[in-house]
């Protein structure tokens, strides 16, 4: 269970960043009073263009960033005050977080299993199961450095799930993957849903959101502009497809900002 309440995140910009963003403001509001709820047994999709604040939201849920205002609760624990307990019950996967390329998937799996305080027997059982599912067994002893992008991503996913977390946070889980690997990832997310886990993902691939997510929240410029099931969103925006709905909303809300 993830509860985000009035989450506002403001970044202080240094002079270089201000120049890059062509702004004179020394603050950038990445998220503005974002509220959402992701429940066990469902996949929540966070949709938005680049720079909308998706990653900031997920990082805050994963305790890596602290809210400027508002609060985030994961499995009933506050992400600031009880961040270790939160980290115990989540897995967070993003492109920027990588596995040490000098080690094998097997070594990394065992290492993170131990960091999560699991015993060797549980780690080995879990590894057998996950490595078998993602087809990592054949290269489990190879250095991660020598693996292809898809293999690396699969290994990252398997390692991040070592402690069988209640809450799964995936930042653009299928970006950069071929269709086959992407499919195995989405299939696994569905299975996690079946197992009653809370899954939250961010994506800008509309078809992925359509097929996978039980509920969708669209953020533009740090503000959640709509939330609901696919049908609810299509009805509300009077659109045929999610992509049309997205463009409609983008036109409305991006103009307001300018």
């Amino acid at each position: 269970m993830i509860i985000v309440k009035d989450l506002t995140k403001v970044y202080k910009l240094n002079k270089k960043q201000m120049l890059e963003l062509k702004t004179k403001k020394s603050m950038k509001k990445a998220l503005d009073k974002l509220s959402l709820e992701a429940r066990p047994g469902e996949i929540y999709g966070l949709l938005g263009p680049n720079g909308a604040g998706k990653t900031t939201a997920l990082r805050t849920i994963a305790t890596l960033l602290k809210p400027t205002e508002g609060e985030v609760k994961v499995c009933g624990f506050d992400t600031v005050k009880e961040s270790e307990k939160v980290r115990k019950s989540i897995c967070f996967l993003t492109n920027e977080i990588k596995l040490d390329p000098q080690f094998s998937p097997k070594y990394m799996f065992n290492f993170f299993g131990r960091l999560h305080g699991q015993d060797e027997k549980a780690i080995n059982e879990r590894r057998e199961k996950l490595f078998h599912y993602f087809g990592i067994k054949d290269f489990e002893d190879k250095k991660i450095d020598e693996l292809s992008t898809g293999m690396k991503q699969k290994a990252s996913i398997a390692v991040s799930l070592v402690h069988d977390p209640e809450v799964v946070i995936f930042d653009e889980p299928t970006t950069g993957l071929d269709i086959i690997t992407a499919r195995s990832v989405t299939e696994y997310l569905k299975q996690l849903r079946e197992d009653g886990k809370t899954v939250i993902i961010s994506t800008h691939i509309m078809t992925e959101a359509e097929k996978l997510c039980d509920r969708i929240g669209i953020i533009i410029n740090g503000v959640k502009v709509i939330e609901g099931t696919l049908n609810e969103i299509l009805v509300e925006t009077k659109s045929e497809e999610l992509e049309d709905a997205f463009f409609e909303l983008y036109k409305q809300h991006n103009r307001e900002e300018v």
Partner: protein
Amino acid sequence: MLNGTKNIVKKELSRVFHDKKMVFSLFIMPAVMIVGMYSLMGTLLGNMMSDIEEHVPSVYIQNAPADLDEMIQTTGYEADIEYLEESDNIDDLKDGIFNGTVDLLVVFDEGFSDTIGAYQAAGDPIPEVKTYYNTAEDYSSAARESFVSRVLYSYQQGLLTQRLGNMEQLTVFFIDKDPNASVIVDEKKQDGRILGMLVPFLLNIMLFAGAMGLGVDAITGEKERGTLSSMLVSPIKRGEIVFGKLISLAIMSSISAAVYVVSIVVAMPILMNGATGGELGAVSLQFSPLEVIMLFVILIVVVYLYVAIVALIAVLARTSKEANTYVMPAYILVMLGSIMTYAGTGDTKLANFFIPIYNSAVSIQNLLMGELTLAQFGATVLTISVLAAIITSLITRAFNSEKIMFNA
């Protein structure tokens, strides 16, 4: 030890020790290079010395007294000697010495033996032997030194005996007939002085260099590669991660410093043998158990401090390149702090033992001479520990900062 810290130390160590290239470049190559370099230098120096010894100098002697040749034969002085008359021009020979083709020119005053023989009382003329040689030429310098000490000195002694009959008249008293018996010295202190100049400096530099090479990659490198954040989402305290990193870095820096120091100790005699022809006796060290413990404690806190300094810089830097640039001033500071022991012969002012870096170098120096007091030791360890603790807490704060860790 904390569970997270233990696991991270294990992982960091296996990261280095399972990588053959890393092991080679960190631990094996420096040793091979130092031993190789010193051996090469020693051999070259040795070759140079024996080359000079084997060289037969070309020597010209003008106005040689009749009995000089006989004297040269008896002393066994070896050279290509050519005798010149007063009328011969010596300017070409001086040019030859200048250019290094001639090694030595010896000019006796005209009528040398007659002037000596005619000497009666004070004020009578005393003849001169002039030598011309080139101090920039090894052969020339060696030829002159050998000619003066072996030929001219013996010749002078012989003439003196002739004139006085009894040489003992010249010796009123002896000074130290047996010079070795006169020296009363604490061998340990003397050896310690030699090592005390070199070792603190070397140890400090090597420890910091080791920490520098490893720390930047282990922290800034991991930050750049995105592998550090994977640890940040695991349910362990940031402090545990910092501690794990620092301890593993300290272990590896110590090993790397040990490799350097051992290689230098092994290679030094090879170099010295070449330079002095093996005249330098072995420098031995003897420590009491207390001194061993003190040295050990000093080294541990110093390694930890250096690793912490490097880690703090590494965590604040955004790229490895940036980190390597920022770490240089710290390296220079460590060099300056420890090079001061080169000049001094041990500091005794207690206040100076509260100056970090310098205090570690001077403590090791005093320890090697057997003069480190408990107060000095305490001040050193206390200062370094406090500083290291402050830096560790700063690193932990940096690890907690989203701005530093995620550039957010």
